[in-house]
């Protein structure tokens, strides 16, 4: 059977992919530029088909805590928001990391700080990959660069979250959320049954069946010796994720003398820059991290032996560029170009910046 190609927004693709993944619940609060996610879910009424629960909460704080409650039952639950709302969710994200709960969180970034703007931005990179909430924890972070990846990263995010019992975030920006592209949606999967969840997530709080000990989901531990061991266990898990789950894409990198490193919408723009530069005989490739955490630092370190310089392009004042510099250990020049406050650069602007590196 041929795949059905559809045209839709990135936000809509997330909603459809969530239903088709067999997600059990979505809990959200409206905020631009991602409101189409909940709107699409409400319009689709998945509770009548798959049994998926969709609920508009009274706040982002409440929504993320509903996700905590659902995740603690071993259910596939998610929320979505945009930058100011994601700031409000940090409490719940930290608690979920501490309680080792799997869940999917979508951030369709807009410009900040504060109420900022509703235009696209990538200024939540630090917040997402360096912490955000309190405590030593890591958030699995996926950066889609197309509507197709918005759909694909729903399954990828859930799968990674459940593989490691850790929250995962799709870190998109307003461009990726709002733009329309063709997309092939995944096949409809059934939701997990309670028996399956009890087997696959034996820690789930679904009622203490006879003979087993009570399941207690908490991030609290007052004994510092035990709490240190908990933290060491978390760090071991994060090391494992860094070892096994790095994803990136390379475009014309084989013979490249220079690299552009960019994620999400700036990677799409930089793709055109690479084409323009190649026409002018500049041997440049595009390196696109798809997982922002774990960051593809080993691969970039290897490139530091091969290329003469790197230009990092972001919709912020220079955030991922710090990780690029750390990865290449400052062996080669790493320049940065960014636009702020919701302005998106043109491929020509990026090309001009690239030429400064030559």
């Amino acid at each position, binding site marked *: 059977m041929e795949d059905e190609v559809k045209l839709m927004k990135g936000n809509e693709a997330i909603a459809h992919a969530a239903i088709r993944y067999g997600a*059990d*619940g979505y*809990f959200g609060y409206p905020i631009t530029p991602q409101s189409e996610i909940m709107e699409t879910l409400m319009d689709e009424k998945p509770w009548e088909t798959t049994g998926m*629960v969709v*609920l508009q*909460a*009274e*706040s982002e*704080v*409440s*929504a993320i*805590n*509903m*996700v*905590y*409650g*659902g995740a*603690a*039952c071993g*259910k596939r*639950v998610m929320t979505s928001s945009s930058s100011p709302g994601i700031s409000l969710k940090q*409490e*719940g994200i930290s*608690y979920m990391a501490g*309680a080792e709960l799997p869940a999917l969180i979508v951030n369709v970034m807009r410009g900040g700080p504060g109420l900022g703007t509703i235009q696209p931005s990538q200024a939540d990179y630090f917040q997402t990959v360096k912490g955000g909430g309190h405590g030593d924890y890591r958030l699995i972070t996926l950066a889609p660069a197309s509507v197709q990846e918005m759909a694909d990263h729903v399954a990828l995010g859930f799968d990674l979250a459940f593989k490691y019992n850790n929250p995962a975030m799709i870190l998109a920006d307003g461009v990726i959320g709002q733009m329309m592209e063709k997309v092939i949606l995944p096949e409809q999967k059934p939701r997990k049954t*309670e028996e399956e969840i009890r087997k696959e997530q034996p820690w789930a*709080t*679904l*009622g*203490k*069946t*006879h003979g087993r*000990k*009570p*399941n*207690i*989901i*908490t*991030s*609290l531990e007052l004994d510092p010796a035990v709490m240190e061991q908990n933290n060491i266990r978390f760090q071991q898990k994060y090391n494992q994720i860094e070892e096994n789950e790095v994803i990136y894409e390379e475009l014309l990198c084989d013979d490249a003398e220079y690299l552009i490193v960019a994620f999400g919408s700036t990677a799409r723009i930089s793709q055109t820059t690479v084409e323009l530069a190649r026409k002018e005989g500049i041997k440049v490739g595009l390196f696109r991290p798809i997982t922002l955490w774990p960051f593809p630092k080993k691969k970039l370190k290897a490139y530091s032996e091969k290329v003469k310089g790197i230009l990092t392009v972001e919709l912020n004042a220079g955030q991922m560029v710090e990780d690029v510099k750390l990865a290449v250990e400052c062996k080669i020049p790493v320049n940065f170009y960014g636009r702020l406050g919701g302005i998106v650069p043109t491929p020509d602007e990026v090309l001009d910046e690239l030429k400064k590196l030559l």
Partner: protein
Amino acid sequence: MNTLEIIKPENLVYGKPRLMNDNPMHYCPGCSHGVIHKLIAEVIEEMGMEEQTIGIAPVGCAVFAYNYLDIDWQEAAHGRAPALATAVKRLNPDKMVFTYQGDGDLAAIGTAETIHACNRGENIVIVFVNNAIYGMTGGQMAPTTLLGMSTATCPHGRNVELNGYPLKISDLLAQLDGTCLVTRQAVHTAAAVKKAKKMLRKAFENSMSHKGTSIVEFVSTCASGWKMSPDQSNKWMVENMFPKYPLGDLKDI
């Protein structure tokens, strides 16, 4: 008859509920939490719902409630228990779900979660322990602290200009269309315990027949926070708390 003969199983007229384990409780002498925990355990047991119940513990003195009742538990962030319970019940409509919250958790930091869970008529039970003080953090002012009552953060007594008025949140919740039962109880006498248990049972039954949200407030003591003996605390509660927070059903439909 010696003691060993007396404690023979056939002579048993009263015992600890099976769901309460032998972990030593961290609650202070005279604290109401222990009795309220016991009542919840008894009701769950008598309803035969041990394997179907999920409790949501708060932040506050009852943060370790999960150490004492052998059911599945989730520990919520401060004030967020009704949000967790909302998701647990909606995703598992056949389970019995309750939150256990103090006055700071429910009526200060968690006011939004509480009001909106009640307003949606979530089919959960909210057990609300109101002792007019923050016990766990060392006796600070709560939203329900009485006027003139001194705490660590209102050492000269709560005054209206600085701190506003004691919040009668259960009265507020009773106004919401989503609640089906809002009742104020206490556990300071045998008669009160008996009555409170009856209403608690009704609340849990409501949640299983999907009637809406049930709130059982327990006007309680905090001997340590109030700096009184357990006996003095009970007297002080009757004389000072009950006039402001009178016992009885605010709503029962």
